[in-house]
């Protein structure tokens, strides 16, 4: 350990820099794991049908709405 104030300051800066980079990396990794499934899910559900079909019931509605 050095008692030189310049070295101490440099060490402290190194520590905060490392801690900051670590936090950024952790949040990016977390966001990646969360965002990836939701994006995949959105892509899947976009293709999903709500079940609409032009049944006799629906055709009657269209005919009566005129």
């Amino acid at each position, binding site marked *: 350990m050095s008692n030189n104030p310049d070295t101490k300051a440099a060490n402290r800066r190194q520590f905060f820099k490392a801690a900051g980079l670590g936090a950024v990396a952790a949040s990016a990794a977390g966001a990646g794991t969360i965002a990836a499934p*939701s994006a995949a899910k959105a892509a899947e559900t976009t293709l999903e049908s709500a079940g609409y079909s032009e049944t006799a019931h*629906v055709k009657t509605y269209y005919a009566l*709405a005129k």
Partner: protein
Amino acid sequence: MARMKFLLDAERCTECNACVTACKNEHEVPWGINRRRVVTLNDGKPGERSISMACMHCTDAPCMAVCPVDCFYKTAEGVVLHSKDLCIGCGYCFYACPFGAPQYPQAGNFGTRGKMDKCTFCAGGPEASTTDASFAKYGRNRLAEGKLPLCAEMCSTKALLGGDGDVIAGIYRERVATRGYGSGAWGWATAYGAPSRT
């Protein structure tokens, strides 16, 4: 692929509120929430118009764009639905929606609102449509039963049209041509000038 849309013929709406009641009854919507409501403009004055308003299932839905947890999704027919399991009740969609469609069941401490509720075009939610859990959260799935939204189906004057956008637009176009004085739709005069009823 059909694209589901609502279309209101303001010239025919009599402000009976039956669409509101039917929706509430069909889906057993909790107290304090109306998925659909009728708004009357210039009430009691000449030119009064009533418009039945709910989620319009926008093509580029602002609610979907602003949701921080991405709980909205769109079906192949263009129905905008959401997952109440993912919703955190933040209220962003309420502020983004130009129609005031998103509703919240409670107003608690610290701004808690509960899970957002809105019109589903009678298409349920992300879960299997026949389960009790799905019914409790999203209501009945009439689309899967081969039917259309009840509000549109039971409208006595057929002011509220719902279904395949191409078909209902065709029906509306026929009505406009038959009337012969423009659409009669609320906002028409603002956009295209006052209709001449000669």
